């Protein structure tokens, strides 16, 4: 084994936050704990960027923990499909930790800070672990780590209603994880392996495909639940709304997307290749739900009165876009799906960061109560404008690029695709309505009394502003995420694990 660190990047991605978590608990002055957390998140981000740049050049990073050969040892793999998401996850963790410093200090009891930050790093480790694992059972283990950490984080704020929300989330999340485990168990029963590559090789050879089909059903439903696919999204809105703002930023950017990744990875490598009927069932299950989710949740968001809850419903609608692209089972569709994971993370993190900034001055974030806030908080409002435009998909923003790719993919489907294009466009208009409602209140509604407060703290503004600008940067120069998404779609369609 060489000591060249660059060979160990896949395991470092997980092990750095995992090992840092217990150490952070020991750091007492809260600024120190925060600084250590940020440093670890940024380190993870740097690792993810390094790996993404190598994957972009065509490498596949394969790693066997402890040098034990798969299928006996644990294998990790980073290719185009997960490289981009690793960047999203570690980037969101860094942005949220950096950009919500004051908000966190205001919301979390001081004595709990080290524990909170430990859970933060565990969530990062769990999500990264789900992404890099090339082994179905390890995915489950990391899924549990990330879930437990996110329960702690969501309930960690001052809002007591978060407890009920998190309990709902816990019940639903556990059902989802259990379904996944049942599915994996069935496959293990039929093939005797947990390694994804091995499974992919052996599943088509299984004589009786019925347990495989059952496993596919369990895994798809379980992960769809975790991904908050409509109508299995009920846990999400309250969890995002009552969570501390920093946690909302982190989870909204990447929480459910990792589950979508696992769903795509397992489904395309294990089930679609061997079983011709499966691809139809997969599409028939996802497509109508995705379309319904896009329409219903966009409509709900139009009438939501609380800012974060509105954004949460918009997130469920966006998950619909992501799964709609995937349900087309075409290369263009998968490209749009993966690209939208990235672009939506950009838009939503900017919007939730703006919400965090607003929350420094407005306690409950009811949309009506934000009247005239733009006069006192011009930067925050500008961030909200940019994030909102990207969410709508106005040209020049990141959201437009993925919508364009999605619509192009839908048009390849012929007449059926035209109907779906219409639905996507209608929901874009709904996005206009719900984003604009907030902007109007921010900019044009007369405040009830004299507004006397300053902008959010400078660090929060800088980070929120950079997140907003990223939407423009990747709206005008989408080449890198687009290339990675295209590579990823080819990998998935090719059926390689």
């Amino acid at each position, binding site marked *: 084994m060489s000591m060249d660190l660059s060979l160990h990047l896949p395991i470092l991605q997980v092990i750095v936050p995992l090992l840092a978590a217990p150490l952070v608990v020991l750091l007492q002055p809260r600024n120190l704990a925060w600084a250590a957390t940020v440093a670890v998140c940024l380190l993870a981000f740097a690792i993810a960027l390094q790996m993404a740049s190598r994957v972009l050049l065509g490498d596949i990073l394969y790693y066997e923990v402890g040098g034990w050969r798969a299928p006996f040892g644990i294998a990790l793999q980073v290719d185009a499909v997960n490289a981009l998401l690793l960047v999203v996850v570690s980037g969101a963790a860094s942005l949220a930790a950096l950009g919500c410093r004051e908000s966190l200090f205001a919301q979390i009891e001081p004595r709990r800070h080290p524990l909170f930050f430990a859970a933060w790093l565990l969530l990062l480790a769990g999500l990264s672990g789900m992404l890099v694992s090339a082994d179905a059972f390890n995915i489950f283990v990391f899924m549990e780590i990330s879930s437990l950490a996110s329960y702690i984080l969501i309930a960690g704020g001052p809002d007591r209603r978060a407890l009920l929300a998190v309990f709902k989330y816990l019940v639903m999340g556990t059902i989802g994880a259990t379904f996944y485990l049942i599915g994996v168990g069935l496959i293990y029963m039929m093939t005797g392996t947990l390694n994804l590559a091995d499974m992919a090789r052996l599943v088509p050879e299984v004589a009786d495909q019925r347990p495989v089909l059952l496993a596919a059903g369990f895994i798809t439903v379980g992960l769809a639940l975790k991904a908050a696919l409509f109508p299995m999204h009920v846990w999400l809105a309250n969890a995002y709304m009552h969570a501390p703002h920093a946690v909302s930023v982190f989870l909204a950017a990447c929480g459910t997307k990792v589950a979508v990744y696992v769903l795509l990875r397992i489904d395309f490598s294990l089930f679609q290749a061997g079983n011709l009927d499966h691809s139809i069932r997969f599409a028939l299950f996802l497509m109508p739900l995705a379309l319904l989710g896009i329409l219903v949740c966009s409509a709900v968001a139009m009438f939501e009165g609380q800012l974060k809850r509105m954004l949460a419903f918009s997130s469920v609608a966006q998950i619909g876009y992501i799964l709609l692209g995937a349900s087309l089972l075409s290369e263009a569709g998968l490209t749009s799906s993966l690209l939208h994971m990235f672009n939506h993370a950009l838009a939503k993190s900017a919007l939730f960061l703006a919400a965090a900034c607003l929350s420094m001055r407005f306690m409950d974030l009811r949309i009506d109560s934000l009247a005239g806030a733009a006069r006192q908080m011009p930067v925050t409002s500008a961030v909200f404008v940019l994030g909102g435009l990207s969410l709508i998909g106005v*040209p020049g923003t990141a959201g437009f690029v993925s919508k364009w790719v999605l619509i*192009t993919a839908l048009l390849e489907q012929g007449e059926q695709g035209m109907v779906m294009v219409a639905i996507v466009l*209608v929901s874009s*208009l709904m996005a206009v309505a719900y984003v604009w409602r907030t902007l109007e209140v921010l900019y044009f509604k*007369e405040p009830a009394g004299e507004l006397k407060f300053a902008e959010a703290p400078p660090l929060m503004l800088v980070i929120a502003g950079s997140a907003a600008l990223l939407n423009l940067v990747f709206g*005008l120069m989408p080449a890198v995420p687009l290339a990675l998404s295209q590579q990823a779609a080819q990998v998935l369609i090719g059926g390689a694990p």
Partner: protein
Amino acid sequence: MVIALCLLVPLCGAPLIVAAGQVSANLRETVTLVTASALAFLVWSLLPEVMDGGRPELFAFSLIEPLEIAFSVEPLGMMFAALASGLWIVNSIYSIGYMRGNQEKNQTRFYACFALSLFAAIGIAFAGNLLTLFLFYEMLTLSTYPLVSHKGDQDTVSSARIYLGVLLTTSIGLFLPAIIWTYHVAGTLDFAMGGVLAGHLDGPAVGLLLGLFVFGVGKAAMMPVHRWLPAAMVAPTPVSALLHAVAVVKAGVFTITKVIVYIFGVEFLFSVPESSWLLYAASFTIIVASLVALRQTNIKRLLAYSTIAQLSYVIMAAAILKPLAEIGAAVHMVAHAFGKITLFFAAGAIYVASKKTELSQLAGIGYRMPWTMTAFTIGALSMIGVPPTAGFVSKWFILAGAFEASNYVAIATIIASTVLNAAYFLPIVFSVWFGKESAELQQNDHGEAPFAAVLALCITGALTILFFLFNGPLIALERQVAAGLP
């Protein structure tokens, strides 16, 4: 290089205006005027090259392979950019008089958004493909929204919501699908002489795609997507002038003309009978909007409906699909701009000086505001198309094109609408000069509006007449578009 500067000047002007606004109002307005003059200078400096048949190009970057953000200056865009940048100077002078005279709030936001909307307008004018055009088209909608809702009260905000709602709904719901459809069948979105769709599409699909474009470009205000224009009348008058003359509606008809000439191709559309509905739809809008205008009692609403009718003139002229008519379409954009901006400036000057907004209050006002009302009269005559005004020139070309095509629907529409235009403008002109002020109105003793406003409307009034005399270069420029048509 010059193209990049044309885009950068108004884009950088906006933050400079904001910064200057922190210092003093005088500095802010100086920055506005300097920015406007610099932009006009740059745009006009492109003119000789385009007149000589050159097509300056600028490649910015590629968005999604093979789609790119690119710019290319051709005669139509050259004309639109020259018009918008030139009128921005006059409009800024007017704005200074109007906004100060009315003591409006948030003037810095006003001037900054104005600069941004000019940035978008120049982007539309110079766009080298449909995607670039769409990008700036949406930017224009968004940057004019704060201008329309400038007053900020409940009434204004709900009208501005209609403005934004109609424009974004049509552009996302119809225009964008039309662009994607075009890309899907033709494999390119570049503007090319003779169009890109010939051979890729035929039959009813052509008519449908044309419909998506025409109604998707809501800024052209074809009925039934015209509602936003009367709603936007809540804006301050300089904004109305921006909407009606400088940028917004012109961007709409410009886009449609450009789509007809460079995406469909005139010859191709002529060969597809399913596309002929456009002419009838435009005629319908001209007649109906004129009839609605007859019944208006508010000055600005009357002008709004008049604009709707005049815009469909451009669309109808383009839809005649004959060389002379295409020239007429282009010339009418300019002619209408001069006339309509004069009328709006006059309406705003009346409001600043006397707070009058209704037609019935205008009796005898000509003697209190002789300069303003002289300009108003010139503008009204140009709308009717009486020589020696700009409106006559474009009507001449459109009629000539209609005769060339033996298109009796178009000829009848032009005659009918001329009569209707005369029917709603001449009584106003008559009462302004020969009517008697009621005793009640005599209490309101007022003179002319502030000097800057009067100066601006005199300039545009003079331009309306001068265009009648000196239109040679523009027509020579637009002949390039029509060159090679049957």
